[in-house]
């Protein structure tokens, strides 16, 4: 038998199979190509008539051809069946750009997500997260932080004081106030835990400020504190520069200039180069020895740095928010833009 003849039969068969336009035609093609009367089956019947030395090669060739034809038929059949189903499914067509109803996910408040983001940046370099009370003793908010009794920030024009428990009169360090900074938690934390300390403290703070675009009586801060046996000014700079790059992006540049805070010495302010300007972003400094003494740390044994930043300020700078009131009006049209 001429093996080329088998190849030709298979070629012609496959051509017929792939050009079958519908399942009915394919049924006919199937009987023509692999049916009882098909050429290839006829050829297989004739193998026995071949000389013994040719039988094996002819058998292999025919079986291979038969397999090819069968596979092509199955493939074509599956394709045609999908075509038929797709025709039916076309009836089920919809316009995907039609509105699909309200998205069911809400949003985190930007202040919360900003605080989480900042805390996570510091967690990535081994800082704990702690929170403290909002109603505080003057001791924690001022005295232990080396703020003298005669300091303007203690005036009622800056600080909100509250009544103590019924009938109780308090004065000096025992006075109850709404904390004006998250720094008191530094003191509480050090009272409870021996050095080393690496902690950030997010939270709500209060000042006697009337509302305008950049002031509100309620706002948020994140305090940070690192105390160890050998912390130096360069550690403060590098740590906060790392934070700035993580928060504002890798191109954020930082600059430190001298400043004054009662609870740090030396004190500094960190400026961040963002959107074409140097912006005052946070206050920081080396922990004042008086603070260590107030919490019972030995200032000759440890050094440390502390920093504090305004959460609203961070969020406003990063997300182009011009009015602090957006954070507290809770208008869904604003809240839903938060991500």
């Amino acid at each position, binding site marked *: 038998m001429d093996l080329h003849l088998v190849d030709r039969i298979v070629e012609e068969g496959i051509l017929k199979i792939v050009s079958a336009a519908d399942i009915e035609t394919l049924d006919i093609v199937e009987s023509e190509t692999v049916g009882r009367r098909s050429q290839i089956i006829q050829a297989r019947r004739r193998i026995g008539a071949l000389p013994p030395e040719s039988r094996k090669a002819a058998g292999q060739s025919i079986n291979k051809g038969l397999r090819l034809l069968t596979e092509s038929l199955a493939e074509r059949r599956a394709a045609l069946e999908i075509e038929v189903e797709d025709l039916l499914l076309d009836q089920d067509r919809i316009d995907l750009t039609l509105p699909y109803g309200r998205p*069911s*996910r*809400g*949003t*985190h408040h930007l202040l*919360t997500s900003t605080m989480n983001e900042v805390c996570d940046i510091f*967690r990535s*370099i*081994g*800082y*704990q*997260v702690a929170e403290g009370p*909002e*109603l*505080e*003793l003057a001791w924690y908010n001022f005295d232990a932080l080396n703020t003298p*009794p*005669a300091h*303007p920030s203690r*005036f009622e024009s800056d600080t*909100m004081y*509250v*009544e103590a*428990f*019924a009938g109780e009169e308090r004065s000096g360090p*025992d006075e109850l106030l*709404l904390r004006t900074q998250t720094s008191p938690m530094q003191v509480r934390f050090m009272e409870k835990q021996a050095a*080393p300390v*690496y902690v950030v403290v997010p939270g709500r703070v209060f000042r*006697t400020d*009337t509302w305008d675009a950049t002031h509100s*009586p309620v706002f948020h801060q994140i305090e940070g504190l*690192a105390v160890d046996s*050998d*912390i*130096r*000014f*360069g*550690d403060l*700079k*590098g*740590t906060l520069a*790392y934070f700035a790059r993580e928060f504002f992006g890798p191109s954020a540049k930082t*600059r*430190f*200039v*001298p400043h*004054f805070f009662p609870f740090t*010495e*030396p004190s*500094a302010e960190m400026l961040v180069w963002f959107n074409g300007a140097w912006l005052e972003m946070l206050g920081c400094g*080396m922990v004042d*020895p008086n603070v260590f003494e107030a919490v019972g740390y030995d200032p000759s044994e440890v*050094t440390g740095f502390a920093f504090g930043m305004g959460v609203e300020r961070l969020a406003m700078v990063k997300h182009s928010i011009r009015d602090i009131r957006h954070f*507290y*009006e*809770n*208008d*869904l049209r604003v*809240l839903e833009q938060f991500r």
Partner: protein
Amino acid sequence: MRVPVKWLAEFLNLPVRDADELEQILVSLGHEVEGIEHFGPSFEGVVVGLVEEVVPHPNANRIRFCRVNDGSATHDVVCGAWNFGPGAVIAYARVGSRLGIDTDHPTTIGAREIRGVTSHGMIASARELGLGDDHDGIMVLDELGAADLDDVGRPLEEVLNLSDVVLDVSITPNRGDCMSIRGLARELAAYWQIPVKEVSPRLATSAGPTDFDVSIVDPEACPRFVAHRIDGVTMGPSPLWMQTRLLSIGQRPISNVVDVSNYVMWELGQPIHTFDAEKIADRHIIVRRAGEGETLRTLDGATRVLESGDILVTDPSGPIALAGIMGGASTEVSAETTSVLVEAANWEPASILFTSQRLGLRSEASGRFERGVDPDLPGLAAARTVELISLTAGGVPRAEAVDNYPVPARPRQVAVGSGDLSRLLGSEPSFKESLELLRRLGFGIDGENGEATVTVPTYRSDVARPADLAEEVARLHGFDRFPDLIRYGKYGMLTAAQLATRRLEAVLVGAGLTEAQTLSFIGQADLDTLRLPRDDPRRKGIRVKNPLREEEAILRTTLLPGLLAAVARNVARGNKEVRLFERGRVFHSVPDSEDPRIPHQPVHLGVAMVGGDTDAFSATGLLALLSRITGSELAVVQGRIPMLHPGRGGTVTDGANPVGIVGEIHPSLGRAYGLDGRVAVAEVALDTLISVPSAWHLNEVSPYPPLVFDLAFVVPESVPAGRLLGVVELAAGEDMDTLELFDEFRGGSIPDGHRSLAVRVTLRAMDRTLSDREAGPILRHIARAVEERVGGVLRGRA
């Protein structure tokens, strides 16, 4: 503090005059520059002119007709002033010049006809030029010593040296010494390593010493009082150069004597007060604390009622000045004053702060005393003041001042070792370099090999410890020159409660709620609106002593007023479906269990929802979801709560104690907030949700097929569905897999006061396939239990 660059340049040879460069240097030294302003004349096109001829106006008596030479031509000008004659050098506003360009109504000078004569421009008065209040006549520049014939034709602003660049520098509270031109000059001099010019007043005098007694009763209140007398003074306006200086720093010129005191305060940082020496009784000054209720009429005319902490300058007749803050009216210098007593004193900062704050009298002087003024300064400042008074108002100063200085300040000495600096700053700069930096800043240095004694100048009261010296070293060295290093801590993990809180918030957000942040304050009206019972602990809110508004005078005891107001505001703004949650602290007037010195201030979780298909189940469903996520076992006990719908609200319990509320708000409460429709709320103490241990254990699942039975019971209305489910669950025993209530039905054959509740019980054993035969007794047991416990009758089974 406003710092004119030209004034600064009087104290040192500025290598740099560019304002931006100066700003950068000041900022690097710790002096923030808040603004850079160009101070200049309020006019343009005005020149120095010479009056060549003055003739009467042909048609008017009160005005004259002048010929004014402006250096290139002679012009006809009509003028109404009479304080000059031919030969006067004056300010000539040419045609086209403009006046008042810094005001809202600048005017352009044109040629205009006055009584038939055309005036080409005008001769200007000081007030018209914005150079003071004087409007009695025109400015006669040669009489004022401000210009002469050589200046004719030159622009007036150039001749008067009127333009300057003024830096607005913000001085930190610890740097009282920088509240002066000389103080900032010192800082810059240290930076550039150049000298600061000395101020050495020269008093040409033959008069005797100041013949006053000064008694200091309380040397703590007043460490030093210098009084210097000058006689033969003529009160009047100060010279133009001084007026210009004061205008450039934003101070209004008043009179020669008063202007000098302001000038010296700005120049040296020592506030000065001037008395009319003749008005002080018995030439005796007594400095003491005020008696309670004592009064003083200050020179603004107000009568001040004093308290015992206030410091007074008095004479034997009574108070004559509120020390360091404001002088008294009775001894104020006036136009008739001829003899002035200059006070340069040092006051205790805290007393000045409290008094000025209480009386609302914060001034340039009090701002300096609050920060602390160099006790060594009054002698020099008093001499400088009388020198300038004699220069601007004439008069002869006394040869000596009275200087009562009971305990002269001695420069502080600080021992510092190299380790004191390097443990804060690192190895750079070296100890030797550090000492050199301190020396440049005016500190005295003794020793250098690892140990030194640093002598602190009296004007640096803020420096007392090695840490303070480290700051001085660091800022002059330059903060930017220290390396950037990172410090790593050891515990970057969140606590279990912090993790649970984050998870819980993520679930709420995923469930379609949006987080709100509301204020921590509420008002009495909020509590009334909530219809809280009289004895409810939430009514006993802690009051703010100095609230911004009465509506925000109480610390919130519940999150609901804030949330409901936020929901209502949204609805009013057209947001129809609003679902808010808030996590925040509330404040209770009971001691905190961990720190009994402060009130208990637990974190609450609050929810408020409106719109869509919101109803009480929206809130109970959320609680169930949170409960499941956190593993806490919150349950709802239905009951009447005044703020909630009587049939759709209840208490949330942790199985034993109430921990919150849940349900729909009472429609009356909705109306109070302007909310229609069903408003669902929940509020729970966050602790109950997040304090559950996070470890949990998997329950093995059965590989065997379940048997499912639907049972319908007729139960009295008084039986809550939750109760029925509890009874069924208990009775079904250990082979019960799941239990679900799927239908509630009333009417039809169900008797009044009853309802049908259908439950689906799925039975599945862990160790075998349950047969129907085994299920029979279980179902009968359930039916009996329901009948016995809650009076329910099995109505059907499928």
